[in-house]
């Protein structure tokens, strides 16, 4: 009895392996690589139905993970959605295809504010997907006055009530901003000062966090946190005691954009996909699901006014005056890493 059971199991296993291993493919397949939970799933299904193209959807955790996989060359992706500085790096390393914008007529809906940005000055390689700022999320009940400067994160009054981002570039970047320098600085003196400032701050920091910052702020575990604007929108909705501000020294504003890596076999279909994502209804659905700011002018019009009117969700031009986009730091990354290790080992 037992024997037969095991034999049947073995047969089933073999069939499963074969069935999965060799599927018949006569459809064009598009391999898309995106952040986790960063698209409205139904959008993919609509695309498949409309164009009869199968979408293989993979997710990555960080830009760096994605970069290693794409650079190594083992997988063949047709669409990637990385962040600004990573796009610049990939352009410099000749890893991206130039886009034929005549195949992407819906590009006209992208806000002209978001064209010709530093990481892709001639709009040859990317189409913006989502964007936002970095700023301070604070609990109005736990903070005595509205913060206006990054220096509030160094205020001893809020010892162990401060949450910093566990990300080298973001944390060192805003420290540089606090000191009045560029967050893309390569100057050793400026970096040394930033390191000292971070070491000084360490005793005041409750924790260096990643995404758990949202739940913590909503629960009132800390008074101040450094977050992305998209996350701030979500937090404020869940806990109205919270508010968000971009400090006067300026901050980082970031973009995630769609690119096509070199070596794709399906450039036409990829461009079709990008064009599809830029359709008003589709862009609106994505923005609605994800909750970050969309660069699509018509989609923004469709979104509820209570979101688009909030300055922290959709910053105005003047809010971005001192803000910068991250650029690729090249070899200075080693310095950043050293500083971060020293701060953390202190």
């Amino acid at each position, binding site marked *: 009895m037992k024997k037969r059971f095991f034999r049947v199991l073995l047969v089933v296993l073999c069939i499963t392996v074969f069935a*999965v*291993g060799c599927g018949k493919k006569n459809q064009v397949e598009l391999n898309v690589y995106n952040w*986790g939970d960063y698209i409205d799933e139904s959008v993919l299904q609509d695309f498949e139905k409309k164009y009869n193209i199968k979408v293989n959807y993979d*997710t990555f*955790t960080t830009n760096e993970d994605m970069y*290693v996989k794409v650079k190594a060359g*083992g997988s063949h992706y047709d669409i990637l959605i990385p962040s600004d500085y990573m796009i610049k790096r990939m352009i410099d390393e000749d890893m991206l295809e130039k886009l034929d914008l005549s195949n992407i007529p819906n590009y006209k809906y992208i806000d002209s504010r978001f064209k010709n940005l530093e990481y892709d000055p001639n709009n040859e390689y990317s189409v913006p997907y989502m964007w936002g700022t970095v700023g301070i999320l604070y609990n109005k009940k736990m903070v005595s006055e509205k913060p206006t400067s990054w220096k509030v994160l160094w205020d001893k009054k809020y010892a162990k009530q401060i949450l910093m981002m566990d990300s080298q570039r973001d944390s060192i970047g805003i420290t540089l901003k606090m000191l009045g320098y560029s967050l893309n600085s390569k100057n050793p003196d400026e970096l040394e000062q930033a390191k000292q400032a971070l070491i000084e701050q360490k005793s005041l920091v409750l924790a260096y966090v990643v995404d758990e910052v949202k739940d913590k702020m909503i*629960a*009132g575990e800390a008074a101040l946190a450094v977050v992305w604007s998209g996350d701030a929108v*979500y937090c404020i909705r869940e806990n109205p005691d919270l508010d968000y501000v971009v400090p006067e020294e300026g901050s980082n504003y970031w973009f995630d954009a769609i690119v096509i890596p070199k070596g794709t076999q399906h450039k036409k279909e990829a461009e079709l996909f990008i064009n599809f994502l830029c359709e008003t209804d589709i862009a609106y659905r994505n923005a609605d699901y994800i909750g970050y700011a969309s660069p699509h002018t018509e989609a923004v019009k469709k979104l509820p006014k209570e979101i688009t009117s909030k300055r922290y969700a959709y910053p105005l031009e003047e809010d971005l005056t001192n803000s910068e986009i991250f650029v690729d730091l090249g070899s200075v990354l080693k310095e950043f890493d050293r500083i971060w290790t020293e701060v953390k080992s202190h």
Partner: protein
Amino acid sequence: MVKSFLKRGYLFLLFAFLYAPIIVLAFYSFNSSRSRGTWDGFSLKWYIQMFQDRQILTSLYYSLVIGIISSVVATIIGTMAAFGINNMKTLPRATVMNLTYLPVLNPDIVTGISFMLLFIFIRLKLGFITLLLSHITFNIPYVILSVLPRIKQLDKNMYEAALDLGATPAVAFRKVVLPEIMPGVITGLLLAFTLSLDDFVISFFNTGSGVSTLSITIYSMARRGINPKINALSTLMFGSILTLLITINLLMSRQKSSKERTS
């Protein structure tokens, strides 16, 4: 008996420790709000959304398939290897054991990237097969580490006795040796399956073409915050396994009692 009470008490506390987070997770799968910071009321919406999410269901499927196949294969290869190693002379045995420790010692990222480079070098496209091969590879050392102590414990004389009594080596193995090492083999199988389910880094770097595991899907949500759909999925998975266990146990005890009645 105080001793028995203390023993059961200790085990109970330990299990409470092990299951506390699981209960918390299950709890929040019914939370109407997405955040772990507030409780907004009871809701089943995450369960509904989970069933509609093709991505999550596909990755669950692959996780289970890879988990089962890789743990079974690893157990077979690993058990055989454990026997072979046990019979080696000191020097080759030490070498092989140290080589066995290496994948366990290596940080996941190093193992993951080195496997990826290997696959690319031999022009194997990253996908299901490469994922399976990587999982089998990191599972085998754990099987060996589980089975080897049991083999060491074996009384060599029993096997010889069986042979002396006229059994063929194969029968002697099956009827004498195998039952003795079974706890080790089962332990190895369980550990391998567990490791396979939970692995992220190695899987991430060695898969492609839409083959994703549950771990990858979950870790990829790290930047945005883990969607409670995952809580719902985990709770369901857990619930089903627990139900299965309880059912098997009830059936077994019924079998036992009916056997006792007839004998």
